[in-house]
């Protein structure tokens, strides 16, 4: 059964130094507030797993929380490179960052396999590509009926998955809507999970009978953090702050301006600062 607690408590209880952490959200519902809390609590030597490391991991890497990153595409989407990630990879600043690189299909299948309790994911991938030459975690397997060669990667089984969702109900169930990405799989694949939500409601009320819901008994901790996905967005609540993504490029390019921004906006703030970005709006409103 999930427990509702503050984000501070949730991170304190569930994220440990050296953990393999998956913070997921595909453009949508990226758990920025939780990422900031992990930084404030000074977690170290994390293996950060994420299909598309963007600002949230640029911040964690730049603050020295990570030892390794498992990913399939990294960058500030539509803007450019992640300067903090590059500084860590190319110059070891503030610490060296090891990379384990896959394709999207491999990562998505690996989360799926983790959720499904399988040791590995099997898919048709990487044909003629160089990544299997540099990543020993990509192997091949033969279909026992056709002899066809397929790719296999180990299932992802993070110690902790962290996601942001629209709503939880009083029983601790979590509703996710819109671009749902790999969040459900990440939570089901992980040993523990933290879900930050825009709001906790008495009851989800009228909904699709096939709504994407994580039952309370699959979630470890829930924290109500309105606006907690900013500058990402929450479908039905607030839009993506594209201008912030663009502005990040200049902030992160320089070590000092990055440090100053993190001090002012993360180290000296708390999760409640995200509430300023929250805004409930009708789903179809725009």
């Amino acid at each position, binding site marked *: 059964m999930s427990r509702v607690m503050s984000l501070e408590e949730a991170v304190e209880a569930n994220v440990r130094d050296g953990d393999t952490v998956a913070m997921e959200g595909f453009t949508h519902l990226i758990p920025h507030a939780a990422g900031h809390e992990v930084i404030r609590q000074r977690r170290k030597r994390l293996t950060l797993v994420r*299909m598309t490391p963007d600002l949230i991991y640029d911040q964690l890497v730049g603050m020295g929380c990570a030892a390794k990153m498992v*990913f399939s*595409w990294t960058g500030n989407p539509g803007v450019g490179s992640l300067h903090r990630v590059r500084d860590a990879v190319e110059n070891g600043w503030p610490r060296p960052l090891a990379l384990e690189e896959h*394709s999207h*299909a491999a990562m*998505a299948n690996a989360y799926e396999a983790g959720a499904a309790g399988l040791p590995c994911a099997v898919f048709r991938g990487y044909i*003629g*590509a160089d990544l299997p030459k540099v990543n020993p975690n990509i192997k091949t397997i033969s279909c026992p009926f056709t002899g066809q060669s397929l790719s296999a990667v180990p299932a992802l089984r993070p110690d902790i998955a962290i996601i942001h969702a629209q709503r939880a109900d009083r029983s601790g169930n979590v509703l996710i809507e819109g*671009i749902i990405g790999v969040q459900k799989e990440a939570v089901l694949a992980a040993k523990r999970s933290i879900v930050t939500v825009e709001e906790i409601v008495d009851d989800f009320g009228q909904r699709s009978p096939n709504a994407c819901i994580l039952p309370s008994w699959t979630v470890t901790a829930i924290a109500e953090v309105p606006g907690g996905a900013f500058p990402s967005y929450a479908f039905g609540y607030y839009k993506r702050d594209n201008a912030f993504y663009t502005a990040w490029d200049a902030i992160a390019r320089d070590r000092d301006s990055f440090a100053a921004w993190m001090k002012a906006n993360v180290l000296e703030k708390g999760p409640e600062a995200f509430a300023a970005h929250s805004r409930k709006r009708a789903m*179809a409103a725009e």
Partner: protein
Amino acid sequence: MTDYTPTEMMTIAAARALRNGDVCFVGIGMPSAAANLARLTHAPDIVLIYESGTLGTKPSVLPLSIGDGELCETALTTVSVPEMFRYWLQGGRITVGFLGGAQIDRFANLNTTVVGPYDKPKVRLPGGGGAPEIATACGEIFIIMAQSKRSFVDKLDFVTSLGHGEGGDHRERLGVKTKGPTRLMTDLCIFEPDPQSNEMIVTSIHSGVTRAQVTEATGWPVCFAHTVAETPAPTAQELEVLRELHARTARAHGNAA
């Protein structure tokens, strides 16, 4: 004739290559502009799919990222990312995939991973994302890339996604049944694979561009088809729709147009 930029020409050439019945796996940036331009002009029923899970999306502005809210709000429906890669891409349901990259070779293999050695790169690029499987699972591949000697190279530093491999029937020998890159649109010209060798050869040069410019911007000894067409210049309507799309996008993203 209306004035237009080489980038506009490239985007419009890509849009023209799309057919009304296509199911198109769209990437961010120029592919997204081209696919939506096609949808807003000659291919109103084209199905656009973004890897974030949105099926049949009809955005009125271009997304900055692959999972912008606009894509989901205008989609027929949105599926999970594992489902997208399993049922929709690997399932063989996509007719055209768009790709681009930092480097391309004469067989349209692409590199978006590293410049220099993998373990000690000169430039760490974003990585493959969906490209390795898009390249082999889609019915055919269109590539959009601005042309220069730095990006059109003799040998890739890293093969992120398969084009025609080493040429000829290499794809078939790898067990791949899809066509691979059938069209490469640049700011100077259009390449298509030679029917035998599958080397990308120039089949159409954009209006006002010379063969010498094309040769100069290609890092391998570029071949021209027996008959090279002149790419028709953008029509007034194409330019108008494309510019309106970009203007709406700039306004929506809070930038000056």
